């Protein structure tokens, strides 16, 4: 194992730039999904429907009334 | 039935001749913009001509796609056409053919005139005409799929562009490539053959996809 040259032989901007750009995408995707999920579950609770699982018509856990 | 559809669409288009003319004018204006933006140097113009004319043709055909189904959709005729016992494939083929005659053929005919602005040789102008003649059916056919998918949606022309322009790229590469080959003195036959192959394949498959898309949009 060799400790990597952090400046990447002078190419540091390009190498670290790539990874940081990619990281920004990954983080953005996960964060925005978490926010979307949170907003949806809050709406779910507020409309006072059973919290989980959502009941879709024709699904196996729909109770006949 | 096919003949009837084509004839009907042609008659309807004739009543709105202005639309047909505006497509041609758009094409001519866009082509003229490039020398204005780039500079009048003849050698340079000869080099960019194939790409410029072809891209202008792409854009002009895309603008006209909205008209392919929209009018019939709005007055309910399209739904009626879907209900006839005639195969939808034929209806689509007829409308697309009529659209090609009205929207694309004028471009094909005027392209050599426009090509003169770029100091192209007579041989090259002929190849330009030929490449567009073979290539524009591909544009109409692939474009009809986009038109059918976006029927009645807001976002109109821009949305169709997003869907259809990536799919136009092979036709652009070989169409413009044929003209470029001619400019450089090599044979354009390989390009034109491939373009012809695209035309035949899209003729066989696009109307089917467009018919499926129409059913989806009209449900």
């Amino acid at each position, binding site marked *: 194992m060799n400790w*990597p040259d952090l400046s990447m*032989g002078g190419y540091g901007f390009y190498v670290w730039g790539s990874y940081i750009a990619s990281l920004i995408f990954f983080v953005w995707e996960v964060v925005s999904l978490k926010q979307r999920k949170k907003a949806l579950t809050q709406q779910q609770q507020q409309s006072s429907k059973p919290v989980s699982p959502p009941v879709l018509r024709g*699904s196996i856990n729909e109770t006949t009334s | 039935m096919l003949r009837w559809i084509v004839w009907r669409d042609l008659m309807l288009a004739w009543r709105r001749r202005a639309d047909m003319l505006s497509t041609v004018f758009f094409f001519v204006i866009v082509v003229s913009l490039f020398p204005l933006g780039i500079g009048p140097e003849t050698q340079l113009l000869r080099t960019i001509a194939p790409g410029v004319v072809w891209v202008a043709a792409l854009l002009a055909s895309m603008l006209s796609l909205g008209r392919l189904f929209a009018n019939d959709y709005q007055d309910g005729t399209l739904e009626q056409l879907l209900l006839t016992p005639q195969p939808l494939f034929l209806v689509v083929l007829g409308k697309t053919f009529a659209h090609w005659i009205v929207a694309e053929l004028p471009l094909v005919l005027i392209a050599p005139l426009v090509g003169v602005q770029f100091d192209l040789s007579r041989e090259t102008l002929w190849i330009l005409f030929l490449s567009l003649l073979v290539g524009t059916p591909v544009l109409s056919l692939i474009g009809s799929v986009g038109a059918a998918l976006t029927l009645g949606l807001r976002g109109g022309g821009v949305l169709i562009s997003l*869907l259809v322009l990536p*799919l136009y790229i092979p036709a652009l590469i070989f169409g413009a490539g044929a003209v470029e080959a001619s400019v450089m003195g090599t044979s354009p036959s390989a390009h034109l053959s491939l373009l012809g192959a695209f035309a035949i394949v899209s003729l066989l498959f696009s109307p089917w996809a467009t018919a499926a898309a129409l059913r989806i949009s009209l449900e």
Partner: protein
Amino acid sequence: MNIYKYASPAMFYPIAGKLIPWFAIPAALLFATGLFVGFFIAPTDFQQGDAYRIIFIHVPAAWMGMFLYVLMAIYAGIGWAFNARLSSMMASSLAITGAMFTAISLITGAFWGKPTWGTWWVWDARMTSTLILLFLYIGFISLQAAIDDARRADRAGAVLALVGVINVPIIYFSVQWWNTLHQGATIRLLQKPTIRGSMLAALLIMLAACWLYSVAVVLIRLRCIILEREQSASRFAEVGV
């Protein structure tokens, strides 16, 4: 056991929820491992110096972009052919992640091109095809965003995705042709360096990491889509539509 009941979005929802950590955590671990191998174990390349280390994110991202598009088309096609809502929702969920990987591949490709070949953007066959793939993703996403009715959006997306996936080889072939014509017989740009064992290992680990990450993220988004549709459906029911 009736496995088809899991094809219902409502039934799959809790299962997806349980699956997510099983993909998310290994993904994080594999990312860490892959980067470790790529930076600490793989040697410096003879030709490209340390700049080549970009491939450890560039190549997996490119592959994921392409693979997810095909997968998206398959799910969309199945959703359309069998009227399976969950399958269509899966396709919609895949689209954004696939587009994102394609974008990462383009950006990292640019970062790789500048130090090695001098320009930020290079019109070689691979980069150009990847750009067109991004356009195809954008088309799919825009079309579905423009259609309000969920089922119409699913089916229209399926037609577009299938037309797209059939066109991808044609587009790739055309771009290859275009590129060789305009480049002549000179250097093939953005060529990968000669792969040594540790480099390949890092590459494959990162690819596995990206794949696991994709599964986790797509499942999270799928659950959001299921909730959104269920909520709008119940809103319709309340109004009496």
